[in-house]
């Protein structure tokens, strides 16, 4: 595995509320790196600041201070078209509630990032088919989201996130709305993508089972990284136990 960081996070702060009024500091100085091809999990209880952190990393929100770089590019000050293009080319998202456009078929949803870049029509179709075959949704391409199961929807969302070959894939509780079988399948899929295509993945979750698929887990508490776990050569089951133990003591 290479050790060049694909993402660096330096002294990230986020304060809500205007100066003078009642303020709330959600992030109190976060530092970490994600190496290229790494599968990292961020865990924490509700209100720990993990969603806030994800929003900063994924350019959905701007930090009060601190810097994030993805692929050597500082992202915290991107605006307008630069920001839009960065999102379209460098990062992919998978959300808990799928965030598919229910007005479009699975195919159209997956192809959307490419059509946005005005990619030639000839290139779009094979690209969609390749990624759909990879994620096992080739047969559903002409269905609308409301005709798909939760697991299928999430795989469509994953296909849309991956079609631009992003530098980073962000997942915000991607298994949150799935049954255990679909969740397991999706996480297996993430592992495969991560290994075979060397896509760096950052997963935010409070579910220890999902987290056990990661190589490294950062625990957030009250806006700071409280602890870090490395899977190293542990089996997934053993790592799962370790996470449970850590959570047991960490949240006390």
């Amino acid at each position: 595995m290479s050790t060049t960081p694909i993402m660096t996070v330096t002294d990230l702060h986020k304060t809500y509320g205007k100066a003078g009024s009642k303020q709330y500091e959600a992030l109190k100085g976060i530092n970490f790196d994600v190496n290229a091809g790494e599968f990292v999990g961020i865990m924490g209880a509700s209100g720990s600041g993990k969603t806030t952190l994800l929003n900063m990393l994924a350019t959905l929100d701007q930090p009060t201070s601190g810097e994030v770089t993805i692929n050597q590019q500082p992202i915290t000050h991107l605006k307008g078209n630069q920001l839009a293009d960065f999102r379209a080319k460098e990062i992919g998202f998978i959300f808990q509630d799928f965030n598919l456009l229910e007005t479009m078929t699975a195919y159209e949803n997956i192809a959307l990032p490419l059509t946005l870049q005005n990619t030639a029509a000839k290139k779009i179709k094979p690209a969609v088919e390749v990624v759909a075959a990879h994620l096992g949704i080739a047969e559903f391409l002409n269905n609308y989201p409301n005709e798909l199961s939760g697991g299928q929807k999430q795989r469509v969302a994953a296909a849309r996130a991956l079609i631009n070959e992003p530098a980073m894939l962000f997942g915000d509780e991607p298994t949150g709305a799935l049954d255990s079988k679909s969740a397991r399948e999706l996480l297996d899929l993430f592992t495969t993508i991560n290994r075979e295509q060397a896509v760096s993945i950052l997963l935010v979750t409070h579910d220890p089972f999902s987290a056990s698929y990661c190589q490294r887990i950062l625990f957030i508490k009250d806006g700071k990284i409280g602890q870090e776990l490395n899977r190293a050569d542990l089996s997934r089951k053993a790592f799962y136990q370790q996470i449970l133990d850590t959570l047991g003591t960490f949240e006390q």
Partner: protein
Amino acid sequence: MLTKLAMTGFQKRWRDYLVLFSGLIMSSAIFYMFEALATNKTFLKQNTGISMVGMIFQFGSVLLTIITLVYIGYANSFLLSMRKRDYGLFMLVGARKGKIGQLIWLETLLVGITATIVGIIVGTLLTIGLSQLLISSLGLTLHHLSAWYFPAALTTLLLYVGLFLLAGFFNLIALTKTPALKLLHSNDQPNRPKLKPVRQLVEVILGLISIAIGYWAMANLDKLQMAGIGIALVTIVLGTYLLFNAIFVWLVVLLKRLPFANRGLNGFTLSQLSFRIRNYTKILSIVAMLFALALGAITVGMGFHRQVPLMVNGGNAYDMGLVNTTGSQKAQIKALNPTTESTYRFKVGKKAVYYRASDFDQHPFITMEQAGHNQLKFTVKHNTAKQLLKSNASYQLNSLQGSAQQRLRTQMLSDAQYAKLTQPEQRLTVFATADVTAHTAALKKLATSQRHRDTGLQGEMLGGRYTGYQLINSMYSGLEFMGFFLGVAFLAMLASCLMFKILSGAAADQHRYVMLNKIGTRKAQLNGALRKEIAVLFILPGIVGVVHVLFGLKMFSFIMVGSPYTGIWLPFLIFAGLYLIYYLITVQIYRRIVLQ
């Protein structure tokens, strides 16, 4: 407790309620405006003199009622969709269905009645403003127009309250029969646009046949009389709906297959359109009808306006005739820069007015004579004394004379005979300006001074184009006014219908645009998609509306002298401008809702 909950829901969604209220207020205001003319029988009688107009207004009332019905249907489903979640929540916390039913009922009626009353007030104010604007800018004279007309207000109130009572019942059944959980998660389900070639072909054919029948009925109104208007209304509405239904679905599916759909957000826009295709076909056919009515009304109004000077110019070649002009009158005439001016000398006997024939031979008297059947085509004739005496149009000289001479015969004498007469010599000065409508103020001054000197010159006795203008203008003012007034009213109704429909879908679109933003869509692309989607919804009914108008204008060929199609580009241009403004406003509001 529940009432309090309901109120908080209201406060939270005031923006949506604002859309709802303004839509309803606009609708009832326009309905009132229309009724203020349609139910005011004295106004119609006094200002048109054409009995058909009253009937046309009654058909208009029926049509507007149908449109209002659909409109309130939309408003109501908008209200229902806003409240579904809240009512579902009330049910979850254990509110009784009866209690919730009461709340729904109350809310629907309250919204309806408030909006209607405000609408009537707004309608009255609009009527005052619009009629004053039209009267001053078109130089109209109107009688018995009252902005506040009680029967109209009553009709409006009764219709709207009745419709809202119905809507309340509907809401009651719809909401209390649905399980709480379904109310909580009642997201729109997409319509999968399907091509059913046979069915669509049948729809297209039926649609075309109905429209053809409608157009034929309008063209043959002289034979069919009132039945023609009824037939045309029903068949054209039906045909428009069928055509939209068939062609719209087909068009979207077809466009999606083109490479065009793979560029930028075009695919998204097409999907958006097909997503609500069923809803839109109804509203689009209504909008197309309103568009045709509004544009037609303005075109007809303008046609009448344009017709006035044509008819005036055909009546006489001169603006006015003055006997024994004073120095100041001469100066006033000179100031008008007349295109022709002649003075004829005459002496008045007991039975006849004696003119010097040589005056006429030197300055031929101009008459206007109708050419063929078309009442607005005239030939200009220059008459010597002899020609004038033979001419059918010699009355045109007669009407220009003073009051005393108009009762007498006209005779032309040679210079010798004329010299023998012992009566004092008088002078008749006739003149014409380039455009009588442009000089009405100065001409009025001249006319008043002449009427002071010749008290017999009452009313129409002062002949010429100026008097003709006053007569014809007052005759056509009512028709012109109705044309413009209804045109603007229908346009406002159309635009608020369309805006309302589009904006009521905006809330549901919000998350789609947020999502597009998250996956990296440029702002310019988002704006472009939004503009395109709304533009399609504006342009489609516009095209159909224009076609309807082009055929519909045939109806007026029997009230209007000359072709109703001449100079048609001007009202079309004005209308396009107004329509464009509505489009831009809709885009603006929509953008504010979905892009924030």
